[in-house]
């Protein structure tokens, strides 16, 4: 009798439990669907209208996209800057972070101190990062360090130094250096955790087979790190697409620092109310973002299947 009852308890949830579980999942899920996914869909919907914030919606088909691709000068620079950001992160910042992780993974005296130092910029907000680097980039008379250094060492005279943040040809590079300063430590920590989880016997086996450190990393460690590698790729891509704060604090994303994210808010919130048009850009950003997101989800699905 008792065993029977226990068994039932064990395998079947009471009605009250079921309701409780449904609330636990249902309430946050509903809020999340409304505030995140429904809003993303509304952006897509609005991109087919010429809505400016008042009056009824008026559908205009692909007109906004047509204007975006052919008639709106800042769009292609913004898209190019986003891709440049991505390339810079993928080709320079992320590999630097991985390199630091590999170097600091060895038994090294003071490894923890080095890690702490490289990681510190990650806890700063990007707005503060923007301020801190403005102090590096400002001109000599404005007390900027880089220009003062160039002048003091005689590389350039004080009035011929470039205007790092003001010159639209170079300011994106200056910002990328500042953003990488923060990104490198982030990647380093993620990658270090991955390296620590690699089974040490794999490395021992490789060493016995006569592989040197580089060969071991390329042929043994890197492949078994596949899950972390996906995370690194996703983090890098998403961070590049989200880039906003640092350029906004420097010049509101103008004059060489245009990004899709700043164009969206500038056209539909801060400066104008061209909501239909801003939504078309938001939709472009959404489509691009779905690439890494789908990659990540497939990864989760596969690991869930195993």
């Amino acid at each position: 009798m008792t065993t029977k009852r226990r068994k039932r308890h064990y395998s079947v949830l009471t009605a009250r439990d079921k309701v409780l579980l449904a609330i636990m999942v249902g309430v946050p899920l509903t809020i999340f669907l409304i505030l995140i996914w429904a809003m993303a869909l509304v952006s897509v919907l609005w991109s087919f209208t010429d809505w400016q914030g008042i009056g009824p919606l008026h559908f205009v088909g692909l007109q906004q996209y047509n204007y975006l691709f052919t008639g709106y000068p800042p769009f292609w620079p913004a898209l190019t800057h986003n891709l440049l950001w991505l390339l810079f992160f993928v080709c320079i910042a992320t590999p630097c972070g991985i390199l630091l992780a590999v170097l600091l993974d060895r038994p090294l005296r003071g490894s923890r101190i080095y890690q702490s130092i490289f990681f510190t910029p990650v806890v700063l907000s990007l707005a503060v990062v923007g301020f801190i680097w403005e102090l590096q980039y400002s001109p000599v008379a404005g007390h900027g360090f880089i220009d003062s250094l160039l002048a003091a060492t005689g590389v350039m005279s004080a009035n011929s130094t470039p205007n790092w943040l003001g010159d639209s040809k170079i300011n994106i590079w200056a910002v990328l250096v500042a953003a990488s300063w923060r990104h490198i430590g982030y990647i380093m920590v993620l990658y270090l955790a991955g390296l620590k989880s690699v089974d040490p016997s794999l490395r021992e086996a490789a060493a016995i087979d006569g592989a040197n450190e580089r060969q071991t990393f390329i042929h043994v460690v890197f492949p078994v790190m596949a899950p972390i590698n996906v995370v690194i790729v996703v983090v890098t891509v998403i961070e590049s697409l989200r880039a906003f704060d640092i350029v906004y604090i420097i010049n509101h994303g103008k004059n060489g620092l245009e990004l899709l994210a700043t164009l969206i808010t500038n056209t539909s919130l801060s400066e104008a109310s061209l909501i239909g048009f801003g939504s078309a850009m938001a939709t472009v950003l959404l489509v691009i973002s779905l690439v890494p997101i789908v990659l990540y989800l497939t990864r989760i699905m596969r690991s869930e299947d195993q």
Partner: protein
Amino acid sequence: MSGTLTMAGQQTTHNRARRRASRIGLYVFLTVLALIFLWPMLYALYTSLRPYGDIVGNANGAFSTPKTLNLNNYFNVWNGSDLIQYYWNTAVITIPAVLLTLWISSMLAFAISRYKWRFNLIVLMIFTAGNLLPPQIIIVPLYRLYLLIPVPAPLSDNGLMYNQFLGLILIHTTFQTGFCTFVLSNYMKTLSMELVEAAMIDGAGVFTIYARVVLPLVRPALAALATLLFVWIYNDFFWALMLFESGGKRPITAALNNLSGAFFTDPTQLAALSVMAAIPTIVLYLILQRYFISGLTLGSAKG
């Protein structure tokens, strides 16, 4: 015989010397790099301590010799702006948002990871994928929605969600729940089932199992996530910039946008402001470094 031995011996000494040289090279490289990484922060600190009069118009810029170093810039920034109000705003937003996020995501993760039902994976994916979306995609509709939602008086002083602490807490909690649910459900899957089974056999209900059995077991993960969430929400610039009018309700990080206009002609005060805005997260990081890093790595441990 002895010849081969000497040769072998020489080779090891040679190898050892080479390895030692490469080790020293590595230390030199890492130390130089560490100094380069620290430099922008140290320079901001140094600039913040210099009187403006010392550097204004000085042709040597950063290399002009400081006559004095003092805290005057900090006093000026403190007196010239409502910093204490901005810090308070940050606390009012960040602390409830962190607690709410942990509470909601731990329940969600518990329900998803401990009970098998049909839409488990889909729910998890909705949260994880949503958390990865750039916030700029949803900001315009969200802003309009916040202007539409009526909120009664004690929670809102203008009858809306817009320009309210509540609105910020809501979007932070919602957005961060995605990440935390993912991390916590992975963490819960690694727990042994025995305790939960024992509690079930004792006839414990779902809520008791959640609150008395699972929650204590995930405490390390909660501590790590709390640290991480605090820093992330403290550092938020975007939501607070867009969902508050440019008034005194903004938290410190978003307030930097208003303050930069007031101080940007004076680099020494800009530096003092940056240092003050950065201090809370840096201090927290120095004290709780272990938690902070384990929070990040928990999130990536299982792709």
